[in-house]
């Protein structure tokens, strides 16, 4: 590969500030998640309350964090579209992977409870 010329200082400056901005976002999201978990713990007894809503919130926030890490830190936002698609499209399989296996898990619990294998 040929020798690289140093980057244009203006581009460099904007890239550096974009990275620090992403850092602040990641930190804020993590703090919000932990605060939400603690508030929920204080508000409801274990096993009570709208747990699904809270879990949905956690999943969405984690996907947002993943977006900042992959997009900004790993520079994916600035790559060619074809490269982005070859990496991201296969992860679509995970959606079915998750649904199928969690479904199977709860079916197991039902069967075990029904046949009184467990108490």
């Amino acid at each position, binding site marked *: 590969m*040929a020798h690289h010329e140093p980057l244009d200082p203006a581009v*460099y400056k904007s890239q550096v500030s974009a*990275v620090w901005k992403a850092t602040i976002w990641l930190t804020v999201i*993590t703090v919000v998640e932990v605060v939400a978990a*603690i508030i929920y713990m204080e508000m409801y007894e*274990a096993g009570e309350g709208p747990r699904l809503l809270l879990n949905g919130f956690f999943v969405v926030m984690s996907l947002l964090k993943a977006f900042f890490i992959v997009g900004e830190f790993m520079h994916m936002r600035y790559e060619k579209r074809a490269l982005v698609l*070859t990496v991201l499209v296969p992860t679509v399989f995970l959606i079915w*992977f998750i649904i199928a296996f969690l479904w199977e*898990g709860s079916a197991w619990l039902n069967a075990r409870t029904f046949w009184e294998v467990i108490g």
Partner: protein
Amino acid sequence: MASDTLHAASADEQWGGGRSPFNVSYGKLMMWYFLLSDAFTFSALLISYGTIRFMSPTWADPNEVFNGMPFIENANLPLGFVSIMTFILILSSVFVVRAVQEGHMMNKAGVVKWMFLGILGGAAFLGCQAWEWTHLIHGADHGHGMTLYRNTFGAPSSFGQLFFLITGFHGFHVFSGVVLNIIICIQAAAGVFERRGHYEMVEKIGLYWHFVDLVWVFVFLCFYLL
């Protein structure tokens, strides 16, 4: 017609050989595909955690399990320590991004400085994880803690098995990343990349290091939040 010809010409130009249609080098592209396969490995582990959790009548409450803090006897700070660990890993990732950016500027001293800070962050994370494992294994009051075979959280033993397997596998990734970062830092300091004319190796190892941070987001989600 005209636009078809134009389109064909540009596709031929892109895919006709002699240059990367993705505008990245072979090594960097293969690093992306390796990380994709590694993402499936971690997904399989985390989904098996979900499956076993769904088929168990009881499970541990993370706010009860993860409430310890170093230097504070019998602390009850749910998620406190793991938040610090998360922040350390994010910062370490940022330091390595800064090293990559200094590499684009062909600034050797900058690359070495930020890479060194990134290594410190990775080592700090591993130290935190060592404390957390020790704390869980021995238990808060030096009584019974969590091992592969038993725990005091009212959860099946698979909770401990999955916890040690998945955080251990992630920790091993962090360890490998720290070793790779050290190699890159020494090579940068020795002027290897300066002579080569580019710092692309920093980018490739940087991709791996950010991936380790990315996996931690989901380990944090599954074990500590959900």
